[in-house]
């Protein structure tokens, strides 16, 4: 031990000297050898040799001065570092010298890195970063699912009374159960101007179940749910900051909130503020969180399933055990309340993260694969650049090898160049990625972002940098090995032969061709995928909605009076205001027809549903299903231009007097009255004893929910609500009528709360499925475009190189009488061959890829010949255009010059 310390005293200064006083160390080495040689020469002369002989003898005795010097240097133990520095300098010099090559490689690679890192940013935000809850893996949504429901169903409703029983009886399986009402949103009533705000009603213990502690105050207690308790509200962090300036004495203040189904607002006492990072995807921008209150209205009926339940699995409980436990409870309740539970259901548990992120996961994974493929193409391009450059460096490498550079040393040199290249590209790529992420979030519209609260705070972070570094490390490895691979296939010595031709050029051509085929195949894959996605988007936007969306506008109206929102001032009956507003707007110039309803078509989901009873059918014939029920005006279907299949629409009198009539859609008629005329039949909602409604008409299936949902039985009854949505068919462009519509509503009710006026087409485009589809189509299309360009550039490189290699052959052919045309055929034939193989492989890949992303395609089959043909056509055309340039150069070869050069 002492000895080792003692040695450090000598060795440490030596190492420093070797590293930092390198010049002097080298001079010493030089001097030492010169001294030795001189003494040797002197000794030789003393023995009678001529000075010349003595000198040669001296040199011989050392057996190569340079090699001995190198051995001495090796003894310094810093050669690795030294070589690293040398290699780095050399690499930088090389890259600066071959600026064109370096720029091309860096830009191509940076593009690939930027694309994959940008997409990975979204993957990170949505799939890697955990949800802001405690142990999110133990959180599940729970609902009763009918055995005939789709296995992919992830959410389902539960009534408040059932939920209370679940909570009481489900203790064994769940540490806690909580629920939220899907009918989200409030009207914030203030003295100045009422405002629509986003918010949610939740059960007590909701935040405790999620494991979220309030930043200030407390969360809801069970007694807050009682209708006699004073209403309470919790604020989101944003609401606290923007509406209360983050004031700490916000607790105890009151805000007046009104739920859409209530007739007046109630003052709510602020009892807590939520932490800034909290978000809940099902109510992404919720500012106000109030409680479900008591057993009234929908909450008082077991058939009214307006809640969704979230549970935290008990410690050690398995999902299977919990579902069995919950299924037992559901069956128990069915026995106790048979009228309200007519279907036998089993409990289904879906992890909360799956419910929240399940839809974006496949899209993101698809995009990440797309970006990955782009990166692969970029890498292939750089690899072929490197191969071509290694080719042109063959002589240099051969010289260095024969001068004593070992294989390991050469390999290290190439690796350093690769690392420098990728490092520069990575830094550039990361910069581009941070811009790219900002650009992509801009691409998603505001509605979209608000539905993906987990995207907040997206941007460059340490995980992205690590990802980028991992990506570049692997590309650097590939690039570092490429020249070695190239060298291993050719004889090193052949490089020394001046004008060495033949094997080297030919083998490079073969590898280059393989690489280009791979590139073209990937490009075809991406082109086809983009084509299929585009087609799917087109299908989605042009799906038969059952209504005519041209010249159709929509707007929501919420009446307000004396500071509270009420169904009708001055004792107006329910629905009368809507009728008056509709009549006024119908009289406007440019308006063709007007209708109104509680909910608009193409909404985010179906309407609240109810069980039903077909009068005249025996008990065992009753179908145990739920029907979404919408409340509509007399003119609603005429304004939508929906086709009447049979019977008639409601009359104005029926709607005004709220007559017990109903209209059903075609699917309902077909499913419940097969081979029977439903007109004149009666249906009771809720239970057999409820007042029955007479069916007066059958309307065509209208897409009330998202366009991708399959046709579903639906019922429509006369409108009887307070707030309403107008549908207005115009004779001219919708926007031109907007100002007069707003003026007309204000004329009748100056304080009415008017939502955003939009055209139906806009609404369609804003739908989550359409937005998601559009952004992914756009992105994959972009990737495909870049892939096309990169692969065509690669192809150009290979063809151009092959032409330059074959210039002599072409010259001889021409000298022997070959026509220009046959030269073109020679060059373009090579292109066609490459493209054909690439397209064939790409098509196979594309069909596999399309099968994998089948779930993302709407009404498009993976095997889609028109798309495949279009992709092949685009690729072939661009490839032929690209190889026309080298073909022309080949045809312009002057045979005389070529032969003279021989």
């Amino acid at each position, binding site marked *: 031990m002492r*000895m080792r310390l*003692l*040695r*450090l*005293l*000598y*060795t440490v200064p*030596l190492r420093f000297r070797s590293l930092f006083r390198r010049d002097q160390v080298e001079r*010493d080495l030089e*001097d*030492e*050898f010169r*001294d*030795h040689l*001189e*003494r*040797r020469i002197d000794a030789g002369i003393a023995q009678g040799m001529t000075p010349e002989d003595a000198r040669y003898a001296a040199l011989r*005795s*050392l*057996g*190569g001065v340079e090699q*001995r010097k190198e*051995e*001495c240097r*090796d*003894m*310094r*133990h810093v050669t690795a570092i030294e070589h690293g520095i040398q290699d780095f300098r050399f690499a930088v010099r090389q890259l600066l010298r071959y600026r064109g090559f370096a720029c091309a490689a860096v830009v191509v690679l940076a593009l690939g890195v930027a694309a994959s890192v940008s997409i990975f940013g979204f993957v990170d935000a949505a799939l890697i970063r955990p949800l802001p809850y405690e142990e999110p893996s133990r959180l599940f949504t729970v609902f009763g699912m009918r055995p005939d429901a789709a296995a992919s169903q992830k959410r389902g409703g539960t009534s408040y009374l059932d939920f209370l029983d679940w909570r009481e009886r489900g203790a064994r399986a769940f540490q806690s159960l909580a629920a939220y009402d899907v009918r989200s949103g409030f009207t914030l009533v203030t003295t100045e101007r009422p405002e629509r705000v986003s918010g949610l009603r939740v059960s007590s213990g909701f935040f405790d179940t999620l494991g979220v502690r309030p930043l200030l105050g407390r969360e809801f207690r069970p007694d807050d749910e009682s209708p006699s308790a004073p209403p309470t509200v919790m604020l989101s962090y944003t609401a606290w900051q923007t509406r209360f300036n983050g004031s700490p004495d916000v607790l105890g203040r009151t805000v007046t909130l009104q739920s859409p189904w209530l007739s007046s607002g109630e003052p709510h006492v602020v009892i807590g503020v939520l932490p800034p990072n909290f978000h809940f995807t099902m109510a992404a921008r919720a500012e106000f969180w109030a409680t479900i209150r008591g057993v009234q209205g929908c909450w008082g009926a077991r058939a009214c399933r307006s809640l969704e339940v979230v549970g935290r699995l008990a410690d050690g409980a398995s999902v299977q055990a919990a579902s069995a436990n919950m299924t037992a409870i559901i069956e128990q309740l069915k026995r106790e309340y048979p009228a309200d539970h007519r279907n036998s259901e089993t409990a289904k548990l879906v992890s909360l993260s799956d419910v929240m992120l399940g839809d974006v996961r496949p899209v993101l994974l698809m995009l990440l694969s797309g970006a990955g493929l782009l990166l692969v193409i970029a890498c292939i391009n750089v690899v072929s650049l490197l191969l071509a450059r290694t080719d042109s460096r063959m002589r240099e490498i051969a010289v260095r090898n024969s001068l004593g550079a070992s294989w390991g040393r050469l390999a290290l040199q190439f690796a350093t160049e690769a690392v420098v290249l990728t490092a520069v590209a990575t830094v550039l790529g990361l910069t581009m990625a941070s811009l790219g992420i900002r650009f992509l979030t801009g691409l998603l519209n505001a509605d979209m972002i608000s539905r993906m609260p987990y995207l907040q705070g997206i941007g460059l972070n340490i995980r992205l940098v690590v990802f980028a570094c991992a990506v570049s490390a692997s590309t650097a490895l590939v690039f570092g090995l490429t020249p070695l691979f190239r060298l291993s296939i050719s004889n090193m010595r052949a490089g020394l032969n001046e004008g060495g031709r033949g094997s080297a050029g030919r083998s490079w051509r073969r590898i280059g061709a393989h690489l280009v085929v791979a590139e073209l195949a990937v490009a075809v894959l991406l082109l086809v995928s983009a084509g299929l996605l585009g087609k799917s988007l087109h299908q989605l936007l042009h799906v038969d909605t059952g209504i005519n969306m041209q010249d159709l506008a929509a707007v929501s109206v919420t009446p307000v009076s004396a500071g509270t929102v009420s169904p009708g001032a001055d004792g107006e009956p329910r629905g009368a205001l809507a009728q008056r507003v509709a009549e006024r707007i119908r009289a406007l110039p440019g308006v063709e027809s007007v209708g109104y309803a509680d909910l608009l078509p193409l909404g985010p989901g179906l309407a609240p549903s109810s069980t039903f009873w077909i009068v005249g059918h025996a008990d065992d014939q009753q179908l145990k299903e739920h029907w979404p029920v919408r409340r509509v005006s007399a003119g609603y279907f005429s304004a939508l231009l929906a086709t009447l299949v049979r019977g008639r629409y409601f009359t104005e009198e029926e709607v005004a007097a709220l007559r017990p009539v109903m209209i059903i859609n075609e699917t309902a008629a077909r499913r419940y009255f097969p081979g029977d005329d439903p007109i004149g039949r009666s249906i009771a909602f809720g239970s057999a004893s409820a007042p029955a409604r007479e069916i007066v008409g059958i309307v065509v299936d209208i897409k009330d929910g998202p366009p991708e949902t399959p046709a579903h039985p639906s019922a429509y009854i006369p409108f009887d609500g307070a707030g309403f949505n107008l549908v207005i068919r115009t004779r001219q462009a919708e926007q031109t009528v907007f100002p007069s519509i707003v003026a007309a509503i204000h004329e009748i009710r100056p304080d009415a709360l008017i939502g955003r006026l939009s055209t139906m087409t806009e609404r369609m485009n804003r739908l989550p499925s359409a937005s998601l589809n559009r952004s992914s189509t756009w992105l994959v299309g972009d990737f495909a475009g870049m892939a096309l360009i990169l692969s065509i550039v690669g192809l150009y490189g290979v063809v151009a190189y092959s032409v330059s290699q074959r210039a002599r052959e072409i010259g001889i052919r021409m000298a022997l009488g070959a026509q220009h045309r046959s030269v073109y055929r020679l060059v373009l034939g090579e292109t066609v061959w490459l493209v054909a193989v690439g397209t064939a492989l790409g098509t196979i890949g594309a069909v596999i890829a399309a099968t994998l992303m089948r779930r993302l395609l709407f009404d498009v089959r993976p095997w889609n010949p028109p798309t495949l043909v279009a992709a092949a056509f685009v690729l072939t055309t661009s490839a032929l255009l690209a190889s026309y340039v080298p073909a022309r150069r080949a045809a312009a070869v002057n045979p005389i010059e070529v032969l003279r050069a021989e």
Partner: protein
Amino acid sequence: MSKPSDLVQGTLDLLLLKIVALEPLHGWAIAQRLKQVSGDVLQVGEGSLYPALHKLEQEGWITAKWQVAETGRRAKFYTLSRAGRQALEREAANWERLSGAISRVVQLKEI
């Protein structure tokens, strides 16, 4: 240049340390001294001398210093360091043990 046997090659370090231990010397003189003391038995190639010296220097066993030599020329003189003395003692002891063992084996009489 005939190569010394592997055994001797392995003990080159020991020889050099011992030679330098007697007095500070430069490379050429070390080569001469080596030839002189070992007769023609140990012919250390001049080529392998310098790397060996540089190795010992980097190990911290000998130190080098440029000095004016007897002829008036500047030369790089190697001196044994304190760590080198300890290393020399250890190596010498090892050599004694090893060579003793080998001679005993070689002198075994056939019975």
